[in-house]
């Protein structure tokens, strides 16, 4: 289990869902989210592949962030790019990630997305998967759960968050142009965030 492998698994999961994510974005955006994310992770995987196997997690996350930033092209580029760069902060110099560190990384990522995109919970964005995930993770820590158990609840909360995005109006991002017409559709970014969390969980499990 290395950071490099984790990124590979997460990246491949996103690349596999390219069509699905693009179709979601077709309904309430410009139909490129899957294309953007697949292009981004293909570029990322090329960059991480050549890193030494024992590269520390923080450095890998920075590589992922910069890779996404320089290749995605859509809103998800600066958003996820910032998220990965910021997640690299709390795990700096750590070789083992415990539940508290993982939670701090998730929160740093969320904070980065909010600094970048100025969105709150309930605006039909990736935050509607990630913020509930973080909240569930926190519950897990409070109940003394393991990292894997915490991550499991986080994935469940993210999936619920994706379902919730179907019921609300987009007020940030391109989908906001559709106003009420965005209701009934799940948010592409919330979906890709959940795909990543799920892949990470399956990898660690």
């Amino acid at each position, binding site marked *: 289990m290395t950071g490099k492998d984790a990124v590979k698994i997460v990246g491949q999961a996103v690349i596999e869902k390219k069509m699905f994510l693009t179709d979601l974005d077709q309904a309430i955006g*410009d139909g*490129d989210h899957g294309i*953007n994310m697949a292009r981004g992770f293909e570029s990322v995987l090329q960059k991480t592949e050549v890193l030494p196997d024992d590269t520390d997690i923080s450095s890998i996350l920075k590589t992922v962030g910069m890779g996404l*930033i*320089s*290749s*995605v*092209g*859509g*809103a998800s*580029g*600066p*958003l996820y*790019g*910032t998220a990965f760069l910021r997640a690299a902060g709390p795990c700096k110099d750590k070789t083992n990630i415990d539940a508290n560190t993982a939670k701090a990384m998730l929160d740093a990522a969320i904070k980065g997305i909010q*600094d*970048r*995109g100025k969105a709150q919970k309930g605006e039909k964005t990736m935050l509607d998967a990630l913020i509930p995930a973080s909240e569930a993770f926190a519950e897990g820590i409070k109940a003394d759960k393991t990292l894997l158990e915490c991550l499991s609840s986080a994935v469940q909360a993210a999936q619920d968050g994706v379902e919730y995005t179907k019921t609300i109006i987009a007020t*940030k*991002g*391109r989908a906001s142009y559709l106003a009420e017409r965005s209701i009934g559709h799940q948010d592409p970014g919330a979906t890709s965030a959940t795909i990543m969390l799920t892949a990470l969980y399956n990898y660690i499990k």
Partner: protein
Amino acid sequence: MVGIVIVSHSVKIAEGVKELALQMAKGHPVFTAGGTADGGIGTDPIRIQEAMEAANSGDGVVVMADLGSAVMSVGLAKEMLDPDLAEVVKLANAPIVEGAIAATVEASMGSSLEKVLQTAHDARNMDKID
């Protein structure tokens, strides 16, 4: 002189805005970062950062952007800049075409960063009544 950077999802828009702005202010430092790294529709924080660096000649830079995700890419590009430069690189809260033309003319008259930014902002109020 305050430099101008035009950030658009479309290479064509970025180039077109530059050509209109330069018409009124020939030779002014106007740099574009249009489209994605591979020439598609989108934005590229890396080229935005490069344009910001190129546009600065000591008096700062006013950046014009088209849509929300361009704004995010600008924010990120600024974060990647040398912090001293980032201080004097300002995103205009203004429409890209109308603001860029007004700002470029203002900048070409040797106005301050604040004045150029204000002029771009005032382009929000431009009326179009036939």
